[in-house]
């Protein structure tokens, strides 16, 4: 009782906790909150980035809705979301499921899959730009050995550019999911597996009825984060194609960048950025709602 009460008098000063919070709050206001609020204002103006901004009402948003580039970019973000909700998740689950039961070499495999994740996007992009090169890469090599249909300028064609970039991004990302899912699987009670095997469950049944329910919170969390991150994707697209050819791999983030720093349409860029936030906000709202409903995520 005494030990519990003795610190109390020291805490009379209510200012002290705020002093500890002061640096992070100040930085947040200066770098993130202030400019974010300014962005909301500029989204309704014709600001160029310099000089005066003139209020133009909803003109930027009207332009956005009717702009084919914006619609293409949004569609590409949705395609990106669909790809990343499936391919890396499948590969991550597969890798983790195969890794969970083995003992010898587990750490080696885990490390090998994780390494691309710690390498800078500009380097990963360059690696694949070489490997997928239409004249010197793996495509011509395969063509020489009887497999001609992979000999394509993957990043240079409108029909393949986005998927080729997604492939490269996924290459550096799926290993991260292996490690996340593996950690979740190792937290599942081993007795459940024991019981399933005694009942004669096969590999698939074991996965479906023991593993999947066991890692559900982690799985759902990664899916939600995937949705949010898919609307933010920038690095790999900017580095590999800058959104081209002919906007074929344009996404909202590259469109903001081009509008603000390429065409000096800062007001319009702010409006596009605001729309990105709304899509992300939707993802966060789903997350918070599920958490409130008692989902352990």
């Amino acid at each position, binding site marked *: 009782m005494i*030990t519990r009460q003795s610190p109390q008098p020291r805490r009379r000063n209510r200012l002290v906790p705020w002093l500890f919070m002061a640096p992070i709050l100040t930085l947040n206001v200066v770098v993130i909150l202030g400019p974010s609020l300014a962005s909301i204002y500029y989204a309704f103006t014709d600001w160029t980035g310099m000089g005066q901004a003139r209020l133009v009402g909803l003109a930027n948003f009207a332009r956005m809705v009717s702009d084919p580039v914006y619609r293409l970019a949004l569609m590409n973000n949705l395609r990106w979301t669909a790809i990343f909700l499936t391919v890396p998740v499948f590969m991550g689950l597969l890798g983790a499921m195969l890794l969970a039961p083995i003992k010898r070499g587990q750490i080696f495999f885990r490390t090998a899959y*994780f390494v691309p994740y710690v*390498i800078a996007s500009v380097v990963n992009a*360059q690696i694949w730009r070489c490997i997928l090169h239409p004249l010197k890469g793996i495509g011509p090599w395969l063509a020489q050995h009887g497999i001609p249909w992979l000999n394509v300028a993957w990043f240079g064609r409108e029909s393949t550019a986005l998927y080729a970039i997604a492939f490269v991004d996924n290459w550096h990302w799926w290993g991260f999911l292996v490690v996340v899912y593996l950690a979740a699987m190792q937290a599942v009670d081993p007795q459940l597996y024991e019981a399933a095997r005694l009942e004669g469950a096969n590999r698939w049944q074991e996965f479906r009825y023991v593993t999947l329910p066991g890692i559900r919170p982690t799985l759902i969390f990664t899916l939600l984060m995937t949705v949010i991150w898919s*609307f933010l994707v920038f690095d790999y697209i900017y580095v590999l194609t800058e959104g081209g050819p002919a906007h074929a791999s344009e996404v909202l*983030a590259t469109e903001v960048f081009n509008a603000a720093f390429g065409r000096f349409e800062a007001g319009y860029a702010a409006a596009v950025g605001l729309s990105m936030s709304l899509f992300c906000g939707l993802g*966060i709202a789903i997350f918070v709602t599920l958490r409130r409903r008692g989902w352990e995520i």
Partner: protein
Amino acid sequence: MIKRRSRRVRSVVPNYVVLSLLVVFSLGPLLVLLFNSLKSPGEVGRNPLGLPREGLVWRNYIEAWQQGNYAVTIRNSLVVSLATIGGVCLIAGLAAFALAKLDLPGADALTMYFLVGSSLPVQLFLVPLYFVWARLHLVDNLLGVIIIYWAVYSPFATFLLRSYMVSLPTDFEDAARVDGASEWQVFSRIIVPLTWPGFLTAGLVVGLWAWNEFLFAVTFLHRPEVMTVTTSYYNFAGRYGRDWGLTSAAAIIMILPVVALFLVLQRRFIEGLTEGGLKT
């Protein structure tokens, strides 16, 4: 008995087969990068994917170091990464202490705010921030991106450190308070020494992020004297795109410190990047 065992213990040979194929997919491209970094331009043309067969061209590394201006950019990236680590650990450490150990009114609301704020797109604030920074002479200035990294990475580190601090028993700090220690002394003399693994993990992760960061670096640093390794490499790969030996050697130079550090401290990296990054 033997029968039962063989029925219950499943063969893991198929696992090793598929896992090994996945290793080829994961590390194969990095090996190609390493091989190419040791080839002459001529050999790259004849043999773009295989082992170097016409002698190892170590000169690529020297040339990449000089042409890539690495003496300057590695220094810049080191300055940015170390300043980011130091600043984030201090800022986030203080915030985590307030959230975990002090009666901060509205701590839950603040946590929620940082949680939502760190999932919002950079593009929401990037454009006005750029023009504010331009006016404050923080564009083309390493301090400019360092301040941004402090603001952007601190929430993550705060969550990570808070989880370490929450799990500490209060006995030590209570005893110190009884002895008349100020909250700053409690923080610096008791909490930090007891949660240093958390600071190490947070520091490694934000250091990695700062080293690899591209969007802010490409937006805010244009002059060659202030470029970091990522943006400088981006330009370098554009300029010398045809000489794969040179671009590959330059790539190895910039990823080598990161990969080496990761291999040595991988448990911490993985803990910080997975648990901390996902489970805020």
